[in-house]
């Protein structure tokens, strides 16, 4: 009995509690207001339904949120993820560059410049280089992370437009669509990608000392340096990792919409990612972090988006709601607010 109660208290205090509560609240709302929200159908051996849709469409955000969690855990921030999404998409699309051609025999053939693995690898490598740039600015030059990544946030879209030559590149090559539209065992491939990233990062963070190092840097980077943690290298790696996560998301997005749009791919994604991390109970001041609760946070954000779409409200309202939610959470989490709340509670006790 006692251990059950103990576990419940532990769960109540865990980071995952608040986002789960928010998710359940949204689900209850949707259960009443959206018809067939919990229905899952099987068509042609594939699962369909709102829940699958949320998981599938939320995949890019979940992956970016994982990378962002690690950056924020070192007391940093990465504003450039949206731009990196666009760059990675542009690189992959321009390398695949499929063209539809009709052979003299009347057959339709899709030509590609390179194969899918090469395009995917190239996109990841290019993103990693931009991640190194961010990491270099923050760890070696000690530029505040907001400004360092702001440079890439704006200039990065310019780079993406440079790669696509200012046009939207349409992809015709079908094998590439597997990433964002394919199904494996009836479940969208994108969900498997999320699971894989989550598993790898989770193992790295909890089974090696890397997670502890990151938390230590976020709590006190000077002290961490004195006890021999290679603070510079770890900060550097964290930004590379965030960029790679953004690139994977970019690949999923371009594959899903069959095009690379330098202007709109990943637009405003940085806010969604930060919102997911903050909603997951992770502090912007760095330190202790939980990847799983960030992923749940991302699901909450995606559910919110899906709800707005399903309810038929203008999608732009999303920006307002999300901006508002970030402000509220940040205020609720501030030390001053907690102090005031505690004072109120104490006064209540005395009465």
């Amino acid at each position, binding site marked *: 009995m006692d251990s059950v109660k103990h576990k419940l208290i532990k769960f109540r205090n865990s980071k995952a509690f608040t986002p789960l509560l928010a998710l359940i609240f949204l689900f209850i709302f949707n259960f009443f207001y959206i018809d067939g929200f919990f229905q899952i159908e099987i068509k042609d051996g594939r699962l369909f339904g709102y829940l699958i849709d949320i998981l599938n469409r939320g995949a890019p955000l979940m992956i970016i949120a994982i990378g962002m969690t690690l950056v924020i855990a070192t007391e940093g921030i990465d504003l450039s993820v949206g731009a990196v999404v666009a760059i990675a998409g542009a690189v992959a699309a321009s390398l695949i560059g499929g063209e539809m051609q009709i052979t003299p025999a009347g057959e339709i053939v899709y030509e590609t410049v390179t194969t899918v693995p090469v395009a995917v690898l190239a996109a990841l490598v290019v993103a990693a280089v931009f991640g190194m740039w961010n990491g270099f600015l923050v760890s070696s*030059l000690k530029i505040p992370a907001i400004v360092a990544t702001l440079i890439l946030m*704006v*200039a990065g879209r310019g780079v993406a437009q*440079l790669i696509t030559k200012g046009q939207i590149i349409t992809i015709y090559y079908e094998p590439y669509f597997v990433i964002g539209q394919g199904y494996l065992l009836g479940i969208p491939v994108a969900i498997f990608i999320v699971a894989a990233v989550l598993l790898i990062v989770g193992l790295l963070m909890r089974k090696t000392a890397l997670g502890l190092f990151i938390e230590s840097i976020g709590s006190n980077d000077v002290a961490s340096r004195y006890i021999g943690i290679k603070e510079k290298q770890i900060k550097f790696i964290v930004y590379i990792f965030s960029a790679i996560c953004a690139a994977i998301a970019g690949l999923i997005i371009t594959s899903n919409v069959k095009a690379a749009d330098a202007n709109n791919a990943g637009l405003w994604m940085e806010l969604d990612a930060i919102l997911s991390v903050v909603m997951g109970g992770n502090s912007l001041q760095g330190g202790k972090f939980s990847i799983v609760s960030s992923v749940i946070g991302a699901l909450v954000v995606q559910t919110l988006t899906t709800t707005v779409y399903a309810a038929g409200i203008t999608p*732009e309202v999303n920006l*307002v709601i999300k*901006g508002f939610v970030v*402000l509220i959470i940040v205020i609720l989490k501030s030390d001053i607010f907690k102090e005031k709340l505690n004072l109120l509670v104490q006064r209540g006790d005395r009465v």
Partner: protein
Amino acid sequence: MINKILSTKNLSLKITITLFVVSFLICSLIYPGFFSWQNFFNLFIDNSFLLITAIGMTFVILTGGIDLSVGSVIAFVSMVIAFLLQQGLNAFIVIPLGVMIGGCFGAIMGLIIQKFKVQPFIVTLAGMFLIRGLSFLISVESISIKDPIFNRIANYHIPIAGGAISVNVVLSLVVLALGMYLAHFTKFGRTVYAIGGDEESAQLMGLKVGRTKVLVYTLNGLCSGLAGVAFSLYMLSGYGLHAEGLEMDSIASVVIGGTLLTGGSGFVFGTLFGVLIQGLIQTVIMFQGTLSSWWTKIFVGILLFVFIVLQKVISNMKTTKNEFNN
């Protein structure tokens, strides 16, 4: 002599001014028709809204803060102005209203930053999305401004030195003069520098740190509101996607103009040259003809990077020298 030029605290600003003059002269040699008063005035005409918002940003950065919401505020103000003018409201009511809206947003964000001790970037980042979203709530489409009074103000040209400038230019230069006065000749300005230098010391000295910080964000909000008016006069339309990424141009202007990103040191006057250099890049790309518009973003990014590194080098030089003197 060389030591005197290199050692003073405004080395970064001197480099910026030299860079601007030299590049303007080089461009004049390369491109025929580049060197003219009108082309020089055009730098001011095309960037007056940037100058206005960058002056507000200078104060914010001087306190060691940052405001990422300025572009969104400009978009929202342009949208409100376009919408209200479409509804038939008088331009002379709508214009002050636009400025006030900006001031209100700034004040709210400043209050949240100060009262709850939240980092400025997250509050203004949330504000950036919130306010841009609000402008889409008015309309998703772009609204063009057809109001006769507003159009007359927009098209009014003041002849000067064989060329002409727009009302916006006068507006931005007035804001520049006011900004310089506020920063260098008032108690408020000295408090701003003190906060940027060391907030705790400023507090211990008995300066009104909290009030000044809220006022700085309000001032920046007012500037972005006014920049929104200038932008509407320049574009003659309101649109939710207007002025995207302007926050970066604005921050870049301040940094290139010689203000330290960590706060406490810099000049309002320098920001003018930060704006002019960016304007010059745009003009050169236009004159060059074959380069596409997105190169501007990339060049500004590179320039911002170079100047941040320059700041690091200068501040490192200072610390080593101080150690040597001691």
